[in-house]
């Protein structure tokens, strides 16, 4: 696929710990929530990297770190070789132009008191060099047209639109500064089933049209597969498996990935009695106090002595062509959602 030159985003050993404190006046640190704990990946131009995992695995913190909305505890996020995580002032502002975000909830991520024109045009207020003042209205109308909304509706308010249309407004705002990267945090999960496909198709079309790179965060595994070139599976702040979509879905090697895939209900009742289900016991452990060694070992049916002592690194192992963070990684094709 794309060559190394095309890498536009490099994430290296990214860590974000939120301190846990006790006391009101004298705040003593009593530990940390390890929300993101050592994440590495690259993103190439025009590529979609899907990020899947359950709540609390650090997906959304990762998104905030990529946007420099949170500062990492350590590690770097380089956009075209420049570290956005440590950038300040004018440099940060310039870099943010290139990486934009689409949020999950189109009901709360749009200001109810602003018109659609103001919402979509607001990025131009901050980055006035992108569109001169007299030109903005026309630009906003263009953007509305691009995402499939009526440009005549520029003076309407968010409540006058349906959920799917509101998500289109959010996407138009994300496109305004012509970024190369868009971080989509659960962009379709708040929408009705019949509307999800419309928004997915729109994202797909925009990617081809503008050669966008997406970080696509979602918990719906079939949606992620549809849009992603590569998929990263996260568990408790770490990527446990990373590979091309077919590698992850058809040849998963990490037990957590296998369990996750097998847990997704297949929308076809035929053969449902004989389907293999890996039902994990218990809940995800607290990220404030993750298990030693492998973090998945407390719920893993393969766990052995070594798993509690030595942390498995995310690397390519024998018998599989893509990196997996399990001492006993082996391909086990579970019957799963297409």
């Amino acid at each position: 696929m794309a060559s190394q030159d095309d890498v536009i985003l490099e994430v290296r050993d990214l860590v974000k710990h939120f301190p846990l404190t006790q006391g009101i006046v004298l705040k003593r640190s009593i530990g940390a929530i390890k929300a993101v704990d050592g994440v590495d990946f690259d993103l190439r131009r025009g590529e979609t990297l899907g990020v899947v995992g359950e709540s609390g695995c650090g997906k959304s913190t990762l998104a905030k770190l990529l946007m420099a909305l949170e500062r990492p505890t350590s590690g770097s996020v380089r956009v075209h070789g420049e570290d956005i995580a440590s950038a300040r002032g004018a440099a940060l502002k310039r870099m943010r132009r290139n990486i934009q975000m689409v949020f999950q909830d189109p009901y709360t991520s749009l200001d109810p008191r602003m018109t659609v024109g103001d919402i979509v045009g607001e990025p131009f207020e901050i980055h006035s060099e992108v569109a001169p003042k007299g030109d903005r209205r026309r630009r906003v109308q263009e953007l509305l047209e691009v995402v499939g909304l009526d440009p005549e509706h520029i003076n309407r308010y968010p409540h006058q639109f349906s959920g799917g249309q509101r998500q289109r407004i959010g996407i138009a705002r994300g496109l305004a500064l012509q970024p190369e990267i868009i971080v989509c945090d659960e962009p379709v999960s708040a929408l009705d089933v019949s509307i999800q496909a419309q928004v997915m198709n729109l994202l797909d079309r925009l990617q081809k049209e503008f050669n966008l790179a997406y970080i696509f965060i979602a918990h719906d595994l079939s949606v992620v597969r549809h849009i992603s070139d590569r998929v990263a599976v996260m568990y408790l702040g770490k990527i446990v498996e990373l590979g091309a979509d077919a590698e992850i879905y058809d040849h998963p090697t990490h037990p957590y990935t296998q369990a996750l895939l097998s847990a997704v209900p297949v929308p076809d009742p035929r053969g449902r009695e004989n389907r293999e289900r890996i039902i994990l016991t218990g809940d995800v452990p607290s990220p404030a106090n993750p298990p030693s060694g492998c973090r998945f070992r407390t719920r893993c049916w393969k766990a052995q002595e070594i798993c509690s002592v030595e942390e498995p690194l995310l690397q390519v192992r024998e018998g599989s062509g893509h990196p997996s963070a399990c001492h006993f990684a082996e391909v086990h094709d579970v019957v799963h959602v297409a």
Partner: protein
Amino acid sequence: MTKAVTEPVSSGDRPYSGSLLEVEDLQVEFRTQAGVAKAVNGVTYSVDAGETLAVLGESGSGKSVTAQTIMGILDMPPGVVRGGRIRFRGVDLLTMPEAERRKIRGEGISMIFQDALSALNPLFPVGWQIGEMFRVHRGLSKKQAYAKAVELMDRVRIPAAKQRLRDFPHQFSGGMRQRIMIAMAIALDPEVLIADEPTTALDVTVQAQIMDLLAELQRESNMALILITHDLGVVADVAHKIAVMYGGRIVEQASVFDLYAKPAHPYTKGLLDSIPRVDQKGQDLFAIKGIPPNLLHMPSGCAFHPRCVFKRDNCTTDVPALLTVEGPRRSACHYSREVLDGVAG
């Protein structure tokens, strides 16, 4: 665990040959300042002991309002039941005095909700809330009720139930809270359990645990289960029969195998076609065009016609009735035969 948690329900021992729960031509409206919204417009379905009926639909389709009306927990006003019958063991709930109906709630029919955190009272320990069922309905003492609560928490597989009895809802994870709500719902061994989006707020691995638990409880006590959901995957996994709702009406009714193999309504077909499949990667997904109808301004004729690929002239004027297409299958479409035979729209 055995099912000897409670005595058998006494209400309705007389033999009754029809279905356990029958909803017939139910009509529910909401009177708002903006106008009258017909949230439920002639819904008919039934469920028998041991059976799972899935009610599938999007937000605003009327699936939850129907369930709330069955339970008698609909906010009235603004809600008004305009007509229809809800028969439990042959007795109409809608004409029953409230005192009798209260006995059926919990003992005959009970319900679990999507968001356990807001459905549970944050100010009382979970053991107290589960025990309340026994104190109120069975007149047990506090101590006896707590003992029953522990039994139930064991039955829904909450680890260390005894130690957690006096914990508050916020001290439990999402999956565990859902188990507590299930424990409350099955406390009095109901014959019908209504589950309104029971796993929508949960992660997939926890969802699998909860669906497993529900299936097991159903097997143990032969409950009827009404599963309200929008998730086509969950439905395919557990349902026996399906009612698909759109704009306050049932548009298709079929057994789960028939429906997934060959839908007989364009809306169902559209939903199934829009599921991403591996061989469609890189192509556009099939998308139902347009948006769900506004209940205050329903389209004329068939409510689905503005979004339908099979639309003809009479669809904009005549409301299609829910008619038998083939065997037990029913579809509310003028052209259900064509949809079923896969004639392109």
